[in-house]
């Protein structure tokens, strides 16, 4: 049911709909589109993908409510975008590197981060951005677009070291495409032909700035031409399409055909249902009707419909999944809220070895805390 309405949402303008129609496998009602090829995933894998998307959605709700209660700091919700996050991470091999922004909670979870690790920075612990051993994920990138040349460098380094089959997947938003680092990162990737997949999560907004004010280019995918690499538009609310396209891009990155270049720019056309962060009020700049139109194509609903129609999912399984999700969330929140941080740890890991100046500063803080107690430091700062 690709309606005119659809065209307006996905394209820069309705007139460009034809050429730049995003790739889609599941129609908005969850039925498989004619001619579409469903990716080769087992029933178990599909259910697990569904469970992860559902977990992501619940995580989002939980985090927003924790923030409202003042238990965690500002949070960047992902509802509407979890389908794409989960699907792209399903496409990764274990050893592939993931470069996330502040919004890719679900992408990180699927690629190996515990829920606790997702919550930690929100609780402000010193080791909030720590990454567990052996999990090839970078700490979230907050300065927009800076991860892009770094992901290129990582992929390049892997190729130089004889591991071109270890790819890097780099997330960023539509707003990020305006930054110089987007340009430099993609240009290097094209020149050095490195195994990297760039995923632009075009959720139509960069905080309050709409996509068509971000650039006069009709699509984001077409920016790939400037770097001699492939650009491709996908329905980011269709987890199966996202999985297929990302898998193919990763495959090409690792084992390109004769005339292929390894890098790909995927424009994942999606929508941020909620606020930019819990500190943001979207009613100041956008119309709720717009969000509602996108909710009609919800990734969780689409996958649910597909799995139900294909008899993979039933009420019983759904209930099991819900239970598992709730108990995992509850455990994670408890663990993280009980953690605390030693002020000394602020001085750790600034350098491999603590320089004298830092040691003195640490010792002085220690001495003061001993003398006056930690309460003396919890004065209102203002």
């Amino acid at each position, binding site marked *: 049911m690709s309606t005119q309405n659809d065209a307006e949402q996905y394209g820069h303008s309705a007139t460009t709909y034809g050429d730049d129609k995003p790739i889609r496998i599941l129609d908005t009602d969850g039925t498989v589109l004619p001619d579409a090829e469903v990716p080769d995933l087992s029933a178990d894998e599909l259910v697990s993908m569904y469970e992860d998307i559902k977990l992501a959605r619940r995580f989002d709700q939980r985090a927003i409510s924790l923030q409202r209660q003042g238990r965690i700091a*500002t949070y960047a919700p992902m509802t509407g975008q979890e389908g794409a996050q989960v699907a792209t991470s399903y496409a990764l091999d274990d050893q592939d590197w993931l470069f996330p922004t502040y919004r890719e909670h679900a992408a990180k979870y699927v690629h190996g981060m515990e829920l606790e690790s997702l919550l930690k*920075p929100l609780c402000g612990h*010193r080791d909030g951005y720590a990454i567990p051993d052996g999990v090839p994920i970078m700490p979230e990138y907050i300065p927009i677009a800076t991860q892009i040349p770094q992901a290129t460098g990582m992929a390049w380094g892997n190729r130089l070291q004889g591991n071109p089959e270890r790819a890097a997947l780099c997330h960023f938003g539509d707003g990020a495409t305006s930054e110089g680092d987007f340009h430099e990162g993609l240009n290097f990737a094209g020149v050095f032909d490195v195994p990297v997949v760039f995923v632009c999560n075009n959720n139509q907004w960069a905080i309050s700035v709409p996509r068509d004010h971000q650039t006069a280019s009709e699509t984001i995918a077409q920016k790939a031409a400037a770097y001699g690499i492939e650009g491709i538009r996908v329905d980011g609310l269709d987890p199966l399409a996202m999985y297929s396209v990302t898998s193919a891009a990763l495959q090409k990155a690792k084992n390109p055909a004769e005339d292929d270049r390894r890098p790909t720019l995927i424009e994942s056309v999606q929508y941020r249902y909620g606020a930019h962060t819990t500190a943001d009020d979207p009613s100041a*700049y956008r119309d709720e009707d717009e969000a509602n139109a996108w909710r009609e194509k919800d990734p969780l609903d689409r996958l649910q419909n597909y799995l139900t129609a294909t008899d993979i999912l039933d009420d019983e399984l759904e209930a099991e999944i819900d239970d598992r999700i709730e108990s995992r969330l509850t455990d994670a929140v408890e663990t993280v809220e009980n953690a*605390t941080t030693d002020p000394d740890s602020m001085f750790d890991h600034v350098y491999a070895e603590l320089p004298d100046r*830092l040691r003195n*500063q640490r010792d002085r803080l220690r001495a003061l805390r001993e003398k006056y107690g930690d309460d003396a430091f919890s004065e209102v700062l203002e």
Partner: protein
Amino acid sequence: MTSTTADDGTAEADTDTDAETDETDTLTLVEAVRDALYTELSLDERVMILGEDVGENGGVFRATAELVDEFSAERVVDTPLAESGIVGTGIGLALSGLRPVAELQFMGFSYPAFDQLVSHAARLRSRSHGQYSVPMVIRMPYGGGIRAPEHHSESKEAFFVHEPGLKVAVPSSPADAKGLLIAAIRDPDPVVFLEPKLIYRAFREDVPTAAYEVPLGEASVRREGADVTVYTWGAMIQPTLIAADNVAGEAGIDVEVVDLRTLSPLDTETIVESFERTGRAVIAHEAPKTAGVGAEIAATIQEEALLYQEAPIRRVTGYDVPMPLHELEEYYLPQAIRIEEAIRETVSF
């Protein structure tokens, strides 16, 4: 060039003011920033605002709230997400005869624009031998204490102070915020305007409704005292004033507090004049200690007034570490307790 103001932090007494009435509004610091922008947009049609989310959204801190409705989307412009583009086009806008006020969303996001700021905004007057100038303001919320994620709590004013050709201003009160920002907008040179977001809404004070300037380059004595001077700026004025009261009450130490207000050019005269009276100094800032602006102040004092110096000048600063996530930021920032301790050490040296 000293201007002495009352403890309540207002700076009305001796500021250049275009005010024709005595009317005031009771504003927070961020409201005073908005008031300054509103005032200058009204008075000077060359003034315009550009930045990320400054339009419909009114700025992520609401410093530009509703200005787009009042003054149109041509004068209050949402830009693409690109800081070098914002400052770079801002330079061009200034060269074309406008008076752009650029907002960079947080100081931690000013670095992509660093090249445009230091290589061009700062130097085009000198390079063109006075033919061209860049009358532009670059506003940035800065500093910690608001439980923000990494990169949102930067305090690296020294980067801009070290570059000749830039001016750097930092208000510590609503009245100064308005007056300094108006002075910055009217200044013929580029001004980096740092807004201490910790105290954006911490307190209100009476701010004249009319336009007025707090001149750039003039420090202000926020509290008079005879025993020791604390030099500070921005949000650190608050813990400093608390510390001053505490040591006055407990130990009878009489602390003078100098609010620098402008970090470039530094008001050496006021700095030295106060020191010559007290002979002892503490400097408090949020930035990392090493090569921070505190180092310049200490170096300047010993250069100009060594014969008055009775104790080492102590610096109470952020540590030489990246700003930690929020659980530890109260340990990182100069708290009253740390400033008190330094005052005591200095006085008892």
